[in-house]
């Protein structure tokens, strides 16, 4: 149990730091509380070690006492760093056994059952015909309307939609001309993806032949690295470009023209997350060690939009999660630390 040290030059009362034995990248919040203490929030942390042996640890966080508890048994190996971790959203687990479903992406999409004191591997979802050739996944998203549906994005330019209950592929689409870097669900059958070809495309599973480009990076072929769809207000999406300090906000009703470009980071942006409880707020973190919370106004001033609030961490912040289960807390990851910040 650690409290934050002097990372922030500013206030540090209400933040909790967890020091991990290895650098962290992937991070996920559970949507269901732990059965032992309903206030305990589970967080999964994926290591980033540039080698075969990586680990995923699940820790729990108590917002009342501001403490973090590690569980040595809630841990498993992962081949190479997991590119993303995510718990099943809105999980309704059987009342008898309190378990959570965690998905990890790397070479394949893997599902794990996180129980009280152990993690059991459930399945490995592999779409390739031969065992040697796999298309590694860059990211995935769990559909919160359809809990058995996961969409994955891969470097082979395709997006694959899985039915995880049956363990089969629902469909596989060639989404882009180059590697797909991120995918986000809007609704049960609509998703969007970003790619190295610099476009944001929306796909509808009912009409797989067509996709719509709703934004293209101004310098052609500038990869778009991350995408976040505002689940509270499906009209808006945010994306970040490679080597750019801008967060681009898009309105899906007006393709190709960004609604806003949030340009207050002093270095490139690494991650973005919409607020789970408000449709107007978004948080972004970057290499300038800052986490900024923005409020999108109805009308912007001439000089652009200024953030609402900020936080400075000790080093470049690589990961950001704003969980719906804990809307008051934002978690960030930098070097080998995970920090929980009260909003």
């Amino acid at each position, binding site marked *: 149990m650690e409290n934050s040290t002097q990372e922030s030059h500013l206030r540090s009362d209400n933040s909790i730091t967890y020091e991990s034995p290895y650098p962290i990248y992937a991070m996920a919040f559970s949507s269901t509380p732990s059965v032992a203490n309903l206030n305990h929030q589970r967080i999964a942390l994926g290591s980033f070690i540039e080698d075969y042996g990586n680990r995923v640890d699940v820790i729990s966080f108590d917002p009342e006492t501001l403490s973090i508890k590690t569980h040595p048994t809630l841990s498993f190996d992962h081949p190479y760093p997991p590119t993303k971790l995510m718990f099943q959203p809105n999980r309704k687990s059987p009342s008898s056994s309190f378990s959570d479903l965690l998905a990890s992406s790397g070479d394949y999409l893997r599902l794990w059952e996180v129980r009280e004191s152990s993690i059991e*591997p459930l399945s490995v979802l592999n779409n390739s015909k031969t065992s040697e050739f796999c298309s590694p996944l860059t990211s995935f998203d769990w559909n919160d309307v359809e809990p058995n549906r996961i969409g994955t994005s*891969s470097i082979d330019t395709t997006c694959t939609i899985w039915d995880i209950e049956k363990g089969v592929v629902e469909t596989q689409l060639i989404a882009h001309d180059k590697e797909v870097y991120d995918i986000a669900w809007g609704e049960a059958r609509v998703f969007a993806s970003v790619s190295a070809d610099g476009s944001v495309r929306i796909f509808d599973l009912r009409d797989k032949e067509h996709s719509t480009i709703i934004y293209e990076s101004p310098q052609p072929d500038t990869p778009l690295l991350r995408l976040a769809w505002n689940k509270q207000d499906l009209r808006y999406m945010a994306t970040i470009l490679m080597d750019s300090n801008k967060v681009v906000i898009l309105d899906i009703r007006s393709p190709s*023209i960004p*609604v806003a470009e949030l340009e207050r980071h*002093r270095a490139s942006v690494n991650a973005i997350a919409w607020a789970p409880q408000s449709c107007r707020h978004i948080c972004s973190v970057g290499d300038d060690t800052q986490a900024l919370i923005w409020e*999108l106004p109805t009308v912007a001033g001439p000089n652009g939009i200024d953030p609402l609030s*900020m936080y400075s961490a000790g080093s470049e912040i690589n990961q950001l999660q704003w969980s719906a289960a804990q809307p008051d807390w934002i978690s960030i990851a930098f070097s080998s630390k995970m920090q929980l910040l009260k909003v």
Partner: protein
Amino acid sequence: MATGVQIQERVPENLKKQLALTVQDIQWSYAIFWTISARQPGVLQWGDGYYNGDIKTRKTVQTVELNADQLGLQRSEQLRELYESLSAGDSSPQARRPSVSLSPEDLTDTEWYYLVCMSFVFNIGQGLPGRTLSSGQPIWLCNAHYAESKVFSRSLLAKSASIQTVVGFPFSRGVIELGVTDLVLEDLSLIQRVKTSFLDTPQPFASNKSIPVDGITENDKDLTGPAFDPQILDTKVSPLLGCEQIEMASPNDSSDGFEPNQPAEGSFMVEGINGGASQIQSWQLMDEEFSNCVHHSLNSSDCISQTFVDHANVVPLCQGEKDNDNGLEDVQECHQTKLTSLDFQSDDLHYQMVLSALLKSSHQLILGLHFQNSNHESSFVSWKKNGFLKSQKARGKTPQKLLKKILFEVPLMHDKGLLESPEDNGVRDAAWRPEADEICRSHVLSERRRREKLNERFIILKALLPSNSKADKVSILDDTIEYLQDLAKRVEELESSRELTELEERMKRKPQDHVERTSDNYGNNKITNGKKSSINKRKACDIDEAELEIDYVASKDGLTDNLTVSMNKKDFLIEFRCPWREGILLEIMDALSTLNLDCHSVQSSTTEGILSLTIKSKYKGSTVASAGTIKQALQRVARKC
């Protein structure tokens, strides 16, 4: 100037009929009566309306013959019904929509506009109805579809519905709004006509009270004179920043800047501003067929726009003069070319359907919960422009280092063992680039699969060859042809020599079918190498065959190393043959232990420089590595020399 005529407080019963008659008389598209909300004073909401515009389909199920008037009334009723059901559906998404006579697909764009209007509310002084009510003056808006959102918040909707003219005038504690799809220049006499028609027709109005419509009816602002507006507009032209325009349009100022008030008439028209002002509303000049299925979502309170200093564009405002037309056209062209270059229009219909699905199922706008930043407990502090004093320049490191590694490098780590040379990567990448033809996606997918299969086979073939110089398909095929011819020759030689030795050895051992066995070797040497255990039982006296095997084995590529990995839960059985060299056994054990394999039984023998291993091991971690990974690792070891 006649301000609103106070007839009564409530919406009269036959107001709808009145609206109907009026709009039919002047042949406009719709009439809406905005009334002060009973629940929220100071807010205008939908009171009643009549739709007189285009209808897409006529519901054929009509048991009763209705004349045109009644049809029109029925249509308006049905539109209202549809609106109620949709809004009910929104608030409780799980509830099934009550069946209505109309469904969204039956509506034209103009009908959608009319329907969406039902969801609008205006504060007094805001929006066209609001400003009408507050100023007490009629407002005549031309080119409503080009108007700024501030002036006319439904301008985008109007654009999709092709509503070009909107007129509002105060009436009976509310505002009557009329709209038409044609461009009608301002004509106050029309307003007069409408008003008188309302007054003349005998109506059983309960004139309970005679409360003046609004306090803000005096022509204070009008008295500033005609000289007022040119000044305003002139001074506003020069600055290029959009914010000043926003200030101009702020309802608090009661849109003075936009009202070139001519006291005689008391209505207003707005002059377009040429050239300079470079504000673009983010969705101002969208494609013509903007999604007409968006409903509920364009409340005046939630537009987000940002000024973009982009190619000099004309601010599209309502205007009545010809000289501004060109400006508007230019802007339209500008954006049209931008849009067409994105090849957007062809997919428009599909995208509209996507949007309608998305936005129908989305919840009502949840305006942000209290986002208090003054919360003492927060870890965040208010943002200050120069709040971060230390210069946090990137320190010369690569930006987004970890993110890039996760996206670019980590996925390739998984494939490390398979592709030996960048040329292979080239082959693979080239194969994966799908065709540019976006229409036949399914063909592209199957074509891509076919190419992928072909490339896979080529790589396997390349691995089978003893000497590979180049990785391009032609060289691979050439080398294969050569090799096959070579092998065929050898087989012939062997067969002939075997016939001789067979006679001798017939006594000693069972006649074995060498030829078939040899061809078995050919046949089985695929990636999915699973049946090679027979090789292990070969007798050492078959020197020729051993030679053959060694040729295979001595090849650079590890795939012919006669490697089998069989798995049973956590137990692995590995059978492995490779050329022996010093220390190789240790390296193999090392490789296996890094993969978390705990070897508990090892049998090894070295024959003719070939090491054959049989290892039984257990997996000691929680995750099981795939057979592929183990094979890769072992082949890597075998290849080192």
